């Protein structure tokens, strides 16, 4: 009988954004929105599945910067304030909408309850979301993988093997500190792979990673089972490749589920709809409008203009979610049958990776979709939800394949992170790596405490500048000023530190400030850059 495995992989990532010297900072809301809309709703879905005895298997990469932010006390306090303010807004929206429309009023009440539940989850776990996710890992329902330190785009670091090694090494170390065990797998930022990267992974004890489909299709050689069986690299690291069909079903603007007219419309939010005086306390203090998460409209239709959307109906949306989860499960069964018949008795493995924030933040009903999908597949004979480690443990043999150079960005290669808009970044990142390696080797044996602190901070500045998010944001033309300034500011801080360390004139008070604001990886050891690699 046909049987196959299904690996749902959620890549949870946000760049490190920490402005402890500001009572609130616009870009910090990215984290707060993701906690409210994605991370906690996922945990709630996992809890319901567990208490109902449903077998579910999810894989998540919770990236090091995200873990660092989730564990940051300042950000935890700010999140609670943000959540308090959201709850307050939902409360006043109940009275406001009572005079407007019963549908909106019902939704406002729903949001109030939903937000209060979220606060309860957050407070009950003492703000320790990584601990909550780890709990599901300990019970075998979730496998958490790491990511390279600051989500740096590794394919453009190939001139500095030390920089690649540091990204991997710090990614593994950060996971250990937050999760309390070694990661088995890694999500390479943007699925950026170049042949040879497997040796870094091997070196750090990682046994698997993910690539986009064409990384295997055009691998050397093209694997016998395409993307539907993990392969091993020449260094014996397992490779799991994205199934394009699963992505298409969820992502596609034409046929993807999130575009259903019954689902909630992302772009209508009271943050933009209400008059200024009323909404001011709930948006950015500068007065710049932003999403509040209180949304009353449904997609209604692809061509319906934003101002003509109809009211969102929770029950309708729930029905759509259940339908879509069933449809997806059926498609996976059909896919497994089709593949199994071609696979000489080997189980096809379907790997479906997504940005975690798609579920909940962009697609409000996403976490419920995941929950319903696992209910639908519970006890299924054909499609068996699995973690990568379970898949690997079930294998008797694996084909040796060198994956092709690739990313999961537009067109599959480096264009998103290397183009006329953002290419200026790499000259500075290269110089930063060069200087970091130079000083790490020069002062490898120093026991001067202040110099060590300055060198560690220099490493943090380099790592923060390397986040692929900045180049991505510049390409997508969103918060460009922030991304450009973050890049330049970290480079500037790095260069100043270099000068101070070189001339033995370290400004301690300034260093202290940098340690406070760019506080990622408190236990970093700059000597990682002194290592001879490659």
């Amino acid at each position: 009988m046909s049987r196959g495995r299904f690996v749902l992989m959620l890549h949870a990532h946000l760049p490190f954004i920490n402005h402890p010297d500001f009572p609130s900072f616009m870009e910090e809301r990215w984290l707060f929105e993701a906690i409210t809309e994605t991370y906690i709703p996922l945990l709630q879905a996992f809890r319901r599945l567990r208490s109902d005895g449903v077998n579910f298997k999810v894989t998540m990469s919770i990236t090091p910067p995200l873990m660092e932010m989730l564990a940051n006390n300042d950000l935890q306090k700010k999140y609670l304030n943000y959540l308090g303010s959201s709850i307050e807004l939902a409360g006043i929206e109940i009275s406001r909408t009572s005079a407007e429309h019963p549908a909106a009023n019902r939704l406002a009440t729903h949001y109030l309850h939903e937000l209060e539940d979220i606060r309860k989850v957050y407070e009950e776990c003492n703000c320790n979301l990584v601990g909550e996710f780890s709990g599901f890992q300990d019970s075998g329902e979730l496998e958490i993988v790491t990511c390279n330190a600051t989500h740096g785009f590794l394919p453009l670091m190939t001139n500095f093997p030390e920089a690649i090694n540091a990204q991997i090494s710090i990614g593994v170390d950060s996971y250990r500190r937050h999760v309390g065990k070694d990661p088995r797998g890694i999500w390479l930022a943007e699925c950026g792979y170049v042949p040879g990267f497997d040796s870094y992974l091997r070196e750090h004890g990682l046994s698997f990673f993910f690539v986009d489909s064409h990384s295997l299709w055009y691998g050397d050689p093209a694997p016998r089972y395409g993307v539907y069986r993990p392969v091993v690299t020449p260094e014996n690291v397992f490779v799991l490749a994205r199934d394009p069909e699963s992505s298409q079903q969820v992502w596609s603007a034409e046929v993807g589920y999130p575009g259903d007219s019954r689902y909630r419309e992302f772009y209508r939010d009271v943050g933009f709809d209400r008059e200024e005086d009323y909404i001011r306390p709930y948006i950015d203090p500068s007065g710049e409008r932003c999403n509040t998460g209180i949304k009353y409209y449904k997609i209604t239709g692809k061509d319906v203009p934003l101002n003509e959307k109809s009211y969102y109906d929770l029950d309708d949306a729930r029905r759509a979610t259940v339908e879509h989860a069933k449809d997806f499960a059926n498609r996976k069964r059909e896919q497994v049958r089709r593949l199994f018949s071609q696979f000489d008795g080997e189980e096809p493995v379907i790997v479906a990776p997504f940005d975690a924030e798609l579920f909940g933040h962009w697609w409000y009903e996403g976490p419920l979709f995941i929950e319903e999908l696992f209910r639908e597949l519970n006890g299924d004979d054909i499609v068996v939800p699995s973690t990568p480690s379970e898949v690997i443990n079930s294998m008797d043999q694996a084909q040796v394949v060198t994956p092709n150079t690739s990313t999961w960005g537009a067109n599959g290669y480096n264009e998103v992170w290397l183009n006329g808009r953002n290419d200026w970044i790499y000259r500075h990142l290269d110089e930063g790596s060069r200087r970091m390696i130079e000083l790490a080797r020069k002062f490898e044996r120093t026991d001067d405490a202040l110099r060590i602190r300055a060198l560690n901070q220099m490493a943090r500045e380099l790592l923060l500048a390397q986040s692929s998010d900045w180049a991505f944001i510049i390409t997508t033309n969103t918060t460009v000023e922030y991304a450009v300034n973050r890049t330049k500011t970290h480079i500037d801080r790095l260069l100043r530190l270099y000068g101070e360390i070189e001339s033995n004139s370290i400004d301690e008070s300034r260093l202290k400030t940098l340690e406070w604001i760019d506080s990622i990886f408190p236990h970093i050891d700059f000597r990682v850059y002194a290592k001879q690699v490659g």
Partner: protein
Amino acid sequence: MINEEIQSFLSTDPTIQDLRRFAKMMGINLKRTMGKKDISRALKKHAQESKHVSSDAATKTPSEILRPSKPVNAEIPSSYFHDFVTIHPVNPYWVYVVWDLSERTARDLSTSQFRLLVRVSDITNIIYDGKNAHRFKESDISIDAGNWYFQVDFPDADYIAEIGYYIDGHFKSVLKSGITRTPRNSPKFTDNEIWVDLRKGSRKELKVSHESSRRARITKSSGPTGNPSSEEFIKTISKSRSGR
């Protein structure tokens, strides 16, 4: 310097909270009872006193002192004055070349009458001796441009970039990059598969018939090939307010 910073800060009509923070960053002791005017006065006094004193605070702008984490459009060097040229693939048909020159090299070259060129050569599967490239492309763009995108002929091919000039009809290379390989954009089928026995840890080589090697093609064509992070996705994301 501090004097100027304080004057310029005071001219922005700061709030009492900002005044307090600023004074604190400057290391000025304030009493709780001090009002806006008192703090301004204390700051001015401090400015007078430090008029001729140079300190580390002199390199900080008021906004940096107040809110050090705010990312700024910092001035970063346009060149680091090392000799280098590097090459990266952008995709199977484009490579990106970036370079810089040390002051010495720039000076030496500027005194010669030779026009500098950037050359990208296809050196797939050969030991390159400077003359045996399969083919090359040259661009006589200004060396000051610092970078250039080259369209190349082949995926899965090795490329090297060089900066140099022509002398007596021969290309004289001044700087060479490392070698980069463009990504493949088509399947590479084989008759020899290597498999690892995961239970025993041994490797075996498997001869496969063309029938089964075609299977990979069948498997591939069974699904749509659209990339989730397609232009469409980028556009969707672009409509939003944040990176992700």
